[in-house]
């Protein structure tokens, strides 16, 4: 399940792909045993996820507010919710903003993550241990905790960021308000997300660099290839599969991110002007108790993310089927 901070889960997901062995001979049990083994999981998921998802589709075709919630009965209104959402300027603006936001976050995460990975490969042993322990420490920070620390560092009154920027003569940032404009707010959210996502990406890519054969690099150096060309022609193609997986995971997470923007911008400052997709559906659906319309937005969002995750899911499923 996607969340900007749940990299531990994703790491575990990737972890599952390790230590794989050909097990064509594993097909011994033909009977009911495997079905009995998966039955508890399948039933639980069907009950607590399948049923709500079915309900989501029904909700999206109903008027379902607080009154209907208490009555446990919606009023069928056909496609009215869809017409309402698709004719809502806010929906389209939010979608566009979320796409741009996602592109910026994923781009920054991948580029900086790659640079840190390359850096890890060049520093001396002690510095490598220092830097990678630091990365693991950052990786382990809970998202809600990170938000609070960020809010404190960028506080306009005594925020250390304002102090440091002023001292470094970047400009006069005394009592600078970082949450005044939409751009500034979302930039702060981006910094927070990228900071939190970098360790996972950098450490994964660094481990991937170990798979680039040394003799290839040496041969390239002998041929007089420059650093950038070696990277482009040798390192990058070898890292391609990992980059693909990391990029699609980042897109999925950042598109649906909720906790960081919701808490860092703060509910009092959230307006349609700075909505991201999941905040839009939270405010319009849950907060205003318009569950029918909220369901429609959810469904549209799930479809978008579903399309975005095709690459990742297909790749992982192939790994799963082969082992």
């Amino acid at each position: 399940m996607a969340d900007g901070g749940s990299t531990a889960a994703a790491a575990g997901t990737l972890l599952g792909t390790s230590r794989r062995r050909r097990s064509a001979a594993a097909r011994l049990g033909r009977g009911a045993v495997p079905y009995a083994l998966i039955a508890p999981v399948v039933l639980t998921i069907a009950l607590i996820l399948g049923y709500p998802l079915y309900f989501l589709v029904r909700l999206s075709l109903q008027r379902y507010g607080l009154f209907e919630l208490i009555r446990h009965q919606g009023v069928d209104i056909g496609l009215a919710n869809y017409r309402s959402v698709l004719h809502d300027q806010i929906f389209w603006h939010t979608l566009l903003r979320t796409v741009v936001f996602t592109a910026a976050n994923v781009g920054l995460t991948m580029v900086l993550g790659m640079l840190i990975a390359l850096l890890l490969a060049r520093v001396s042993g002690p510095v490598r241990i220092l830097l990678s322990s630091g990365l693991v420490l950052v990786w382990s920070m809970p998202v809600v905790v990170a938000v609070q620390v960020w809010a404190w560092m960028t506080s306009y009154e005594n925020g250390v960021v304002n102090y440091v920027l002023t001292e470094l003569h970047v400009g006069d940032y005394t009592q600078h308000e970082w949450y005044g404009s939409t751009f500034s707010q979302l930039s702060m959210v981006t910094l927070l997300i990228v900071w939190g996502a970098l360790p996972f990406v950098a450490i994964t890519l660094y481990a991937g660099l170990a798979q680039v054969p040394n003799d290839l690099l040496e041969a390239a150096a002998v041929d007089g290839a420059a650093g950038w060309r070696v990277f482009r022609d040798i390192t990058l193609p070898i890292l391609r599969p990992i980059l693909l997986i990391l990029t699609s995971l980042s897109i999925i997470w950042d598109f649906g991110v909720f906790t960081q923007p919701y808490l860092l911008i703060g509910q009092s400052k959230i307006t349609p002007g700075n909505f991201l997709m999941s905040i839009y559906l939270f405010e319009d659906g849950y907060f205003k108790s318009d569950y029918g319309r909220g369901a429609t937005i959810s469904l549209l969002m799930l479809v978008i993310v579903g399309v975005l995750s095709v690459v990742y899911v297909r790749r992982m499923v192939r790994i799963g089927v082969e082992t």
Partner: protein
Amino acid sequence: MRTRTPRLVWDAVGVAVFVVMVFPVFWMISTAFKPNEQIVSLTPTWIPLHPTLQHFRDAIHRPYFWVDVKNSLIIVSVAVALSIALAFLAAIALARFGFAGRKLFIVLVIGIQMLPQAGLIIPLYVVLARYHQVNTLSGVILTYLTFVLPFSVWTLRGFLLGIPKELEEAAMVDGSTRLGVFVKILLPLMGPGLVATSVFAFITTWNEYIFARILLNDQSKQTVTVWLSYFYGTSRHTDWGALMAASTLTAVPVVVFFLLVQRRIAFGLTSGAVRG
């Protein structure tokens, strides 16, 4: 020829990146131990030379801290225990059996983990409200199963694949029953895998925010992350010292557990991704 940048320069850059990345964590801990006059001073104190524990006392004596810690522990332990037990069975099916519908099951397990949580809050809220599970810990536990289960199935499957099947086959030849093989061979060998998966599940559920925020309205029913999120923003003048102390307390169990198992992740991460 490419110019050789001395290693010393790279080391300096590496230390600089370390400082920038770790600074927020350092600042959280540093603030948590600082007396108030140093916190509100316009010139920051980098390292508190006269640390105080006052903020930690303030944080844990704020209303609902202990109740919400207890709620988090209940939710996390029940959700993790249930998930691991059910997921282990399904993981055995995936790692050791071929069956019709196996691919479909894999698609399910992987696909569910990609669903954005925000997209599920409305239907889960409405359905749970129907069965009077809003504002109850059990409702949150059920919700957490939706994402801990698939993730645990997949991770445990990975660990199972690392155990040679020949061991089980040999035991079967020696006359052990399937159950005997499971209890005597698989379970002990899977110890580390079960622990690692449980720790990951613990971290994910302990950190979870959005479902807990939506499903638990009563302050005495909330989890630690929700408690922490209300810390800021409830008053106009935030008590930063206490907030940073509370943040530190919330992060400590996660950081400790994460450091214990992180090596296992970093290992498996790329080998699978690359060969896949």
